[in-house]
């Protein structure tokens, strides 16, 4: 509340001192009526302020040097990267400005997903409806539910995808030749191999994600769980999900009397051959573990036929962005096949692309095909064949609490 009041005071002072004019580059309505060439002209020579988590040097360098360089050379646009430790800070800035009635804010773009996007969309803080104006939007499959929904919140043209991560399982081909490839198969496999499977107890992040897979299986698919939290629906599915997991307990490591407390512990147990399956939200980790000698070279990551959870991160333009035209040009550049390919290089960042490589130029397609990938790491394209959308935070919290209450005790 204090920040909002402070924001109001500050913005009133600012507004009083500003001449009331609306530049074309800032006026969203005017931009939507323009052709792409005109938008690029309006953006030329401008500045774009990108607020993003700044904790990784390789990501910062990719945005400031690679993207910033292209933007300056081709469009004469200056990219100001504003590092954040928590994306909510940027959302709070926009919220304060908009509540104070400032038509022109300080933020042109935020790297965002999940809770923070939901806050922006619900508060009408995100600028929407411009996405089809971007020529490179054609490269993206907006019908993919894992792209069309941001942790359960429909995107509806209010943000543009940037990168993807997807949950994967791993097995040791020397020990388990044919691992289970669906959740029902996995449950049967665990019963047939008592003591050889377990999962970290929520609130461990990865363990909670595994429980969500079982929960979605119990619900008969993700469709009914998309959208806002529904207590009646939750109660109906939860009974089934907790039954499945409680029935499974006698077949788990130590008969399910206890669970590993972290994903690190499960990783060690897999490495020590105490269990035969491992899973992670970052499949590249399996390759790293093999390189470091923690996992044997025969360790392989793989996806499930009925899908694994995936989530996408996005770039959003605030409704009061002072330079929407430049922000659009930047978003278009970020979506280009070349920029997505550069981002996917393991020595640059190794982030999975959101575009469909076969919709890009031949050169880009060849680049993606030639990407160096550790042989133990499953290809993101293969994983992407079956992706499940993430659920809204209220759902994930309720599932975690419900597991602790009904299964973990």
């Amino acid at each position, binding site marked *: *509340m204090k920040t909002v009041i402070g924001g109001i005071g500050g913005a009133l002072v600012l507004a009083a001192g500003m001449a009331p004019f609306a530049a074309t580059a800032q006026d969203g309505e005017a931009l939507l009526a323009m052709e792409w060439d005109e938008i690029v002209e309006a953006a030329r020579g401008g500045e774009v302020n990108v607020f993003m988590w700044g904790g990784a040097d390789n990501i910062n360098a990719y945005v400031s040097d690679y993207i910033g360089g292209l933007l300056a050379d081709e469009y004469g646009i200056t990219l100001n990267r504003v590092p954040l430790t928590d994306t909510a800070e940027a959302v709070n800035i926009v919220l304060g400005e908009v509540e104070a009635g400032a038509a022109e804010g300080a933020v042109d773009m935020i790297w965002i997903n999940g*809770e923070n996007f939901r806050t922006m969309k619900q508060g009408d803080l995100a600028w929407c409806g411009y996405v089809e104006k971007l020529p490179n939007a054609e490269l993206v499959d907006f019908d993919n539910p894992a792209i069309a929904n941001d942790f359960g919140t429909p995107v509806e043209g209010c943000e543009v995808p940037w990168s993807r991560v997807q949950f994967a399982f791993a097995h040791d081909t020397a020990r388990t030749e044919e691992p289970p490839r669906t959740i029902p198969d996995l449950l049967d496999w665990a019963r047939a191999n008592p*003591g050889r499977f377990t999962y970290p*107890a929520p*609130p461990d992040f990865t363990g909670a994600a595994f429980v969500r897979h079982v929960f979605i299986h119990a619900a008969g698919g993700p469709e009914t769980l998309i959208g806002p939290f529904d207590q009646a629906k939750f109660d109906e599915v939860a009974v089934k999900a907790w039954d499945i997991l409680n029935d499974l307990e006698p077949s788990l490591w*130590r008969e399910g*009397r*206890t*669970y*590993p*407390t*972290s994903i690190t512990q499960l990783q*060690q*147990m897999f490495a*020590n*051959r*105490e269990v035969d399956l491992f899973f992670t939200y970052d499949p590249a980790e399996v390759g790293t573990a093999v390189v470091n000698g923690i996992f044997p070279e025969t360790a392989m990551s793989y996806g499930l036929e009925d899908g694994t959870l995936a989530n996408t991160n996005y770039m959003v333009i605030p409704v009061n962005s002072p330079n929407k035209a430049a922000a659009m040009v930047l978003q278009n550049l970020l979506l280009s096949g070349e920029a997505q390919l550069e981002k996917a290089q393991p020595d640059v960042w190794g982030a999975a692309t959101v575009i469909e490589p076969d919709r890009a130029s031949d050169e880009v397609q060849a680049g993606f095909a030639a990407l160096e990938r550790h042989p133990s790491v499953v290809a993101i394209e293969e994983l992407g064949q079956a992706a499940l959308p993430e659920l809204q*935070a209220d759902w994930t*919290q309720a599932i975690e609490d419900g597991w*602790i209450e009904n299964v*973990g*005790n």
Partner: protein
Amino acid sequence: MAGSRTSATEVLGRGHPWLSLAPALCVIAVLFGGGLVLGLAGSFAERGGGWSLDAWAQVLSEGRVWRSLGLSLWIAGASTALSCGIGLGAALLLRRSFPGQGLARLLFQINLTIPHAVGALGILWLLSQSGFLARLVAGAGGIDTPADFPPLTQDRFAIGIIAHYVWKEVPFVGLILLANMQSLGDDPESAARTLGAGPFAAMRLVLLPLLMPALVRAGAIVFAFAFGAWEVPVLLGQSSPAALPVLAWQRFTSPDLAARPEAMALAMLIALVSALLIRAAFTARR
């Protein structure tokens, strides 16, 4: 320069004890007391401002919290009793001079320098079902596979956690008692012996009562640490019930901001129970 420093020391040294203690007390009051007050305030905080007892009511009405409290009391109680018993025995053995006594004392104290997290990982490597002992026994044909080894870590009775604390705290208790015995000297026991007491009676009736205050103090420190520390149970404990500090940490790092006051209430509960029990131990001594 050197002169002015000496005079400052003199002023402080000759002043009232409160004045001399002021710097140390300030640090304790601000850093420790301040944190405690903020934590207590945080446990009564309500989202969006205001005060409420909701977090305390929630925490105290949860079965999990009581089970965790029971587990933490068991861990701290068993660790303290074993550490004090073994530490006392070791100190009594080590105070006599014998060939190689210096080396024995060094070996006895060496793990005081090892951090708890490192020790806990060591226990994991040694005692877990894929650990050294399990592999050794399986290799010798005692069990079919290492996984058949009895669970000594992440187990119901917190054996791994207690083993770590005993390993780590026995030298601590022993060291305090050895220093205490050094300052007592041999005189009280010698006097008892000349008055006709046997060696065992002299120890039981004279030396032990004299050592008791130091033992209770050392035990209080061990108890407070084992009851409130987080890193060892998080590495060696089972998932449920988790030790009380682990539960507090889970609430503190939850994305649900409403869990934050509950984390504070749990932390305050740990401090309160620990303080009451140690207070009771000191009172019983007197």
